[in-house]
């Protein structure tokens, strides 16, 4: 009789141990809430109650605001005319003074995932058609992109082009120009070629 109790006890303990769901879905409690939760509005805290209290708040900076250390805002519009006009826009940065280590980092983080670390349009998301991305990214060292002016590249980076989205939220104006300087450097820095090709590149880009 005693043994039966012991055995049932053991089985019950095992069942309790096995049955426990190990996933912790609950954040738990804290000692002193007023020292744990910020009274000031932290990043990502909800600002809904502000408007309920009649406080007018928007997280968006006023249009045309320029961050400290950044370049002037880009003014061309996101339309066909803007795209054509962008061909004549020049980079405000001196290509020789751009920190290429930083530019390379920005390229590898933001662009290489599709356009490839070698700029050949074969990043891990495409993998020659085996990756999850269904459209082939542009080969950045192809003649078409070599002939594209830095201004047009900047326009496409800012507003997005075809399936590529806008990178204005991830890269500041200066960072976008840095990435373009890096791409142009990798394309062979053929300054002469790009300027002579500028005229017919505007013709071809119109058809895009």
């Amino acid at each position, binding site marked *: 009789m005693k043994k039966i109790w012991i055995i049932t006890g053991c089985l019950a303990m*095992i069942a309790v141990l096995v049955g426990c769901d190990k996933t*912790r879905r609950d954040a738990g409690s804290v*000692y002193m809430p007023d020292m744990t939760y910020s009274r000031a509005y932290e*990043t990502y805290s909800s600002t809904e109650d502000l408007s309920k209290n009649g406080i007018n708040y928007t997280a968006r900076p006023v249009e045309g605001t320029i961050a400290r250390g950044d370049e002037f805002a880009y003014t061309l519009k996101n339309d066909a005319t803007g795209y054509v006009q962008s061909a004549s826009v020049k980079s405000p940065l001196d290509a020789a003074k751009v920190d290429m280590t930083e530019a390379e980092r920005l390229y590898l*983080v933001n662009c290489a995932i599709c356009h490839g670390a070698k700029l050949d349009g074969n990043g*891990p998301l495409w993998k020659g058609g085996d990756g*999850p*991305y*269904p*459209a082939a990214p542009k080969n950045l060292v192809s003649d078409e992109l070599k002939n594209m002016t830095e201004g047009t590249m900047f326009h496409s980076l800012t507003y997005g082009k075809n399936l590529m989205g806008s990178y204005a939220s991830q890269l500041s104006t200066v960072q976008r120009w840095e990435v373009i300087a890096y791409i142009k450097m990798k394309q062979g820095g053929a300054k002469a070629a790009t300027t002579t090709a500028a005229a017919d590149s505007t013709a071809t880009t119109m058809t895009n």
Partner: protein
Amino acid sequence: MRLINGFIHIFSESIVSMIPSKAFGKRLVVFIFSFFLFSVFNNIKAADIPAGKALFMSKCASCHQVLKKATGPALAGLEDRHTWADHKELLAWINNPAAYMAKDPYTQGLLAEYGSMMTGFADITLVDVDNIVAYINDAATAKSPVVGVVDDGAPKTNNNAIIFGVISLILAIIALIMMQVNSNLKKMSDDAEGISRPDPVPAYKNKVYITMVSLLFFAIAGYSFSKAAIGLGRQKDYEPEQPIYYSHKVHAGINQISCLYCHGNAWESKHAAIPSVNVCMNCHKAVQEYAKGPKLYNKDGDEINGTAEIAKLYKYAGFDPNKPNEWDPSKAKPIEWIKIHNLPDHVYFNHSQHIRAGKVQCQSCHGEITAMDEVKQVSELSMGWCINCHRETKIDFNYSDSTGNKFYSIYERFHNDIKNNKMDSVTVKDIGGLECQKCHY
């Protein structure tokens, strides 16, 4: 080709009927011949598709997909539309879209629908068009891509603790039984030798037992109480259910997206920002289904439909996959992800300070994110945990070398000490990593 095969078949039949004695040999020869012909013809036709695929991938795939609308229309069944069954028409359009469109209302309608004109490819020839169309027809009729090696990814539980518990329980039971047997034997031998002893005290009255049990009780209760008290306010293993089943394993692991692609602010600010919906849509405007990755499971072991999870994102983004060009990012609603790694307000932590100046890898604190489907807090994020790392982590002090961090050049004394072999390395502790005010102010 069918004709030729048929002819060869009839030919062989007639030979067989004419010369019955040598039928087998002849038949064999003719069949081999016919198979040879068949395979040659088949190869010529099959060669079209790989060439077409190569052309499609290099010229068309930036804007067109076979089955889905992208920047341009889906190309499956294009021969049924307009006059494209005539490949010369198609060639004229591909070679010079602007000129073709000038006199053709159908393609003008396409421009109105998709908003951007097709790029011309003057170097494409009629043979190329045949090959590309052959590839498109082949890809349109082919079954959906077979998912490759699938690891089942089902959650596995670590049973070590349970096994040890069971073993110690069994041992305890055996020990009890042995004690019982021992006392019984002793009693029997005593009876046999005629020694009379007082009846043994029952276990619940035995003071030794009671002391042992109460000591054990206090030890266990004290341990679990202090453990719970220490754990109060700490969230190790916290793994909340997120509004969308977003797998870091698929994104950062399999597809090798850099952590900073989405959490770029970690490089520049205190916070490793949560990406806004437009960052998700950079890729998911095109990646509309989850087809090529391993199967996903939730914690109950139920399979997750990745495509349905992407559809949830579209709901937040206000994106209609059938009209990709009409999407307006400014109408997107934020996804309210649940923050996992929480620090109390009385401690300051800065991401950029650690990953940019300190060159700490994300995984050092967040664990192996690239292997996690659902993210959980791996580190304790307790003060002892912080301090321990500050004591042990050697900082990259070699600033004179170009790989070193120039930030540390101000610590002149340490540099001199290293030079004079007074110390071999500098830890975070040495540059004030244990000072209260560095994190609490």
